[in-house]
């Protein structure tokens, strides 16, 4: 059984592309997540990755984010904050709390 994860790409009213992830991201679906990230990236416009509804993310998921770190901004809740901080991702990109 694959880990539950739904990925939705939207665009905000200001035109900012948004990737909203819901569920858990681990080794089993990290590829899906990476693909969604890549698909949502639109030129030079920074992508807002909304991880607010993600309950778990491991190093495989984090690796996908590191890949695009200069073009994305992150939106995450307190649950993921330690992981994002410890991994150093928070230092490389903007992480907004929700």
């Amino acid at each position, binding site marked *: 059984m*694959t880990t539950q994860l739904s990925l939705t790409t939207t665009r905000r009213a200001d035109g900012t592309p948004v990737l909203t992830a819901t569920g858990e991201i681990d080794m089993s679906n990290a590829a899906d997540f990476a693909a969604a990230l890549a698909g949502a990236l639109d030129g030079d416009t920074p992508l807002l990755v909304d991880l607010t509804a993600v309950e*778990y993310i*491991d190093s495989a998921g984090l690796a996908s984010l590191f890949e695009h770190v200069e073009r994305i901004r992150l939106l995450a809740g307190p649950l993921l904050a330690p992981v994002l901080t410890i*991994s150093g991702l928070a230092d490389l990109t903007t992480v907004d709390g929700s």
Partner: protein
Amino acid sequence: MGDGEVGRDLAAVDWSSTPLGPPGEWPQSLQTAVGILLTSKFPMWMAWGPRLTFFCNAAYRTVTLGSKYPWALGQPASAVWAEIWDDIGPRIEGVLATGEATWDEGLLLFVERSGYREESYHTFSYSPLRDDDGALVGMLCVVSEETDRILGERRMSTLRDLGSDPSIVRTEEETLAFAARQLERNAKDLPFTLVYLDEPDGGARLAAATGIDAGHPIVAALATAEPGLVDLAGEGPAGEGPAGERLPTGDWPEPPVRALTVPMPPYGFLVAGLNRYRELDETYRGFVELAAGHVATGIAAARSYQAQQRRAEELAELDRAKTTFFSNISHEFRTPLTLIMGPVEELRERLSGGDDRVREELDVIHRNGLRLGKLVTTLLDFSRIEAGRMQARYEPVDLALTTGELASVFRSAIERAGLAFTVDCPPLPEPVHVDRGMWEKVILNLLSNALKFTFDGGIHVRVTREDDEAVVTVADTGVGVDEREMPRLFERFHRIENARSRSNEGSGIGLALVKELVGLQGGTITAASTPGSGTSFTIRLPLGTGDLPADSGSPLSPAGDSYLQEALRWLPGEPAEVPSGSGDGSRVLVADDNADMRDYLTRLLRGAGHQVHAVHDGQEALDTLRTGVFDLVVSDVMMPRLDGLQLVAALRADSRTASTPVLLLSARAGQEESIEGLEAGADDYLVKPFSAAELLARVRANVELARLRTHHTRWRTALIDSLQEAFFVCDEAGAVIEINAAFTDILGYGPEGLPYQPVHPWWPREETDAEAYRQVAAAFATLLDQDRGAYTIPVRHQDGHRLWVAAAFNQVVDPDTGRRVIVGTVRDVTDEHYAIQRESALAGLGLRLSQADDLPGALHGVLEELRSLWQAEYTAAAVFAAGAAVPEITAVGAPVPVARVRTLAELRDQPLLTPVTRPAEGTGIVIEHPEGTMVLWLELGERRPFTEQDQTLLALLAGHIGQGLTRLHQIDEQRETALALQRAILGPAQLPAGFAVRYAPATRPLKVGGDWYDTVPLPDGRIGIVVGDCVGHGLGAATVMGQLRSACRALLLQHSSPAQTLTALDRFAELLPGAACATVFCGVLDPESGELVYSSAGHPPAVAVAADGSSHLLDQGRSRPIGVRSGGPRTEAGFTVSARATLMLYTDGLVERRRKPLTEGIARATAAIQDGRRSPVEELATDVMDRLAPADGYDDDVALLLYRHPGPLDVEFPAEATRLAPVRQVLRGWLDRVGVDRTVAQNVLVAAGEACANAIEHGHRDAPGGRIRLQAAATVEELRLIVTDSGHWRVPQPADQAHRGRGLKLMRALMNEITVTTTITGTIVEMQVGIL
């Protein structure tokens, strides 16, 4: 002018103003005279020149001149001695005129040299002094002052006179008059004196006065004078008394001005007027006081003399009254005596031919009447003499003839006494004037006295003439009189004590009367005596003139007969011829020195049927009693040789006669007398006179009492002989002096060997049985030392066999001898001794066997017991196991000597249970041993014998030892079985997660029990948990436990309700013997929620300790133990085990301790959980078991079950990425149960996830199908996670370094501790993180 002070003072005189001119111009003669004067040590003065200029020397100045010095130097002599110039002036003029010297001795001169006119006395000579031309120009006075000597002599004379009253002083008045005369003679020192005596009313009365008229007013005034000086001048005009009357002057021209009052306690005081010409110095005052003392002494003597006088007069008056009384009473006696004697005489005549008995009794009356008459007459004579009324009728008597005749009266009596009697009375040339009757009394008294005190030799009467005196001598060879007693020999009523005599009768007036009577005849009597060789009385009477009257040599007066009759009764008579009476056999000894009394008593007692033997005194009685047996002694108190009291004392001191009763008779009626008699040990006391009936009654009572007493003695002998216990009496030294028949029966030693001196023959031989000998010696020491006691000792029967006897003894004082004796009993306890020895040995062995944990322990105990029982040097056991080449030897006390090992091997083939004694080695016995054959060996040492009884006991014990060892062996085996079974039943249990269990058998003695624990996974995911305790121990209990456990397990699966399970178990237990009363704690736990439902069947409550350490007792749902029918339905209770709390179930063995409440044990167990709540539950279980174990191990078996909620997580899954999410889900749920917060939970999830991902990615990338195991466990404070895979972690490649590195970095950051261990079998990642 010479040296010295006087010389200097002379030099200072202004000589130029004197007729002598300056000294330089003095003639040589003057200078010479002055030189002589100054150098002389003798008092001198001189006068020179026309005005008789005064010179003196130092001695004169000191002795005589007084305050006139130095003024007098150079003054005219008439001025210097103006006050006495009248006396000395003419003398000096005479010297100057005639040139002849003067001499005056003790001349009284009133000089004024001390501020007053002073009485002084001088002896001096005036001699002429001539100038250079030979003309008389002066005089030299050589003087010695004698005032002190003259005053001293005067005063001494007065004192001497006062103290030398030539008369034997009489009344106080006379004494005072005498004193006054002496005081009056010294009117110089005592111008007047007044003696005042104290009156009873407190005032003072003038008793004597000198030098002053008693009516002088000052006399009354001085009656109240205080002691000390009285100023008489103050009493009126100078020199006059009050009322202006002039005081007497004494020998002086002027009256005294002072008086001295001297107390004379307690009589009064003396006032002395003082010589005004003398100072009251110490000497003067002393003189007055001494004089007063003399007066006081005189008064004292006079008063004392008066008091004595009065007392003497009173005594004399008393004596007169007594004499009168004696006289009267004696007269009064005579009348009834006459009336007795007259009729008796008549009766004797009338009945002379009648009954012998009557005649004899009349004789007794007659004799004693005579005796009484004699006593009365003597008393009367005395009172007459006293009263001066003795009418002597003097007549000329042929004294030799009369005396010879009187003496012959006594011849028969004296010869009957076995004494020689010589009468030597040659005729005298002249008659002697005597009163015949009185002379008769004198001679008869002396003879009677001589007979009384003479036992050997003879009595001599002699009449001779010496000058003009007739000398009558009565001499004996008797006991004599002690020198100290001689002065009182003739004293009235004086009796010489303790003198041996024929009779103790007597009034003590015989010799006194003799003396008085001899005195009345104008004669004298003297006595000479030597104790032990005799006494002689010598009477001297003046020879008279005149013719002998015709009737001289008249026959003896009746009085003479009375002396003879009395004396005859002192002598041993014929045995009384009294019929012996019927008699019932009681033998009475009569002791009396008076023959009449003796006969009377004899007759009286024989008449009453007693057998009587009569003796004369106490000594004879004592001799008789020592050889014969009497039921009673009747004895007089006053007897010669040995009196009644001494007799009693002597009888009581001799064991042969100590119990003979004594009845004392005495004429002295004082209470003290009878007490003295009874204290001496007399049984009864009778005072004379007594009636025949009274005597007989007393005799009868005493005889009966005595018989009762001898009956007691006989009874005592019979009783003691009939005792089954041996009886003995020891003296103080321990010699056995009395035994009974049983003693002989038990020990074989009979009374014929008495006394048995220690060491007694029944003692064990010291040389062959030292230990037994020591025991007996110690017991014997207590026998002598202690008041009472008991001991059990080994002794030897006469035939040699060993006995054990129990002896009990008491020290008592022999009432007869007063000596300490030991009375004891002895019982043969040989059988009991061996029985007790057997029993205690068996009990001891039994204890040793039961206490032993195993066979070797038991054997050791047995050897110790045997060693202590026999006090052996050592004991040993050699076990010859089947097939073993060498025996296994155990020894206690000492190692087995090598030489004995061979002995033991030899004994191995001896028959079983038969003791074998090897002389000089020891004793062995063969016993069956579970492993083969065993030889038990004892070596006593010290040459102690191993007796027959010892052998019997050893055989008996050996049998028990064999059985005991076999039984122990069986028990051993059984226990092993039970333990195996129990372990088999209990484990290995597949415990659900979170549980830890322990079981421990009881340690001492090691034994299994009926405790169990169980966990039962139920179909609904819950877990049934059970801890139970069956009654009893051992294999049986273990079996029951197994069945109950199975049943419980099955029932839980069926009901999944604790209460229902236990109720069903009740029914099951009814069918299972031994199951009743088991206690069970049964619960059903939801491992997810921690909810627990439980019910307890009489089991100790479970304990829950929360993460914060708080504890909770699960003591609800309680009910009776299993299989106990009573009460209602079983109930159950609920409890939620909180996160990381620990639940503890246990059996009572864990918490129950002797003498401590159960709650204390539960608290200790709870504390152990609290302290260990940070430890993993498995570790905690071990801790709890260790911590609660008593020092020497659990004495009951223990089952323990712990649960930590939640149980650890343990999941295994295939190494596939898709498995990560579900595993995470499980972990998330577990973390939730552990109760960690979201952040920690997230961290754990991430770290675990990374580890798992690593395992999948690296461990199994090359070997798919591998499995990963995730384990997680919680303690109170932290979580531990372990991720294990069976693959190999690949060394990270550079390509994915960043990615992998990130994962590891995450894990390290999130966890407190990470350990990665890679081995060939796989990789283990251990992670730890704090919860709080």
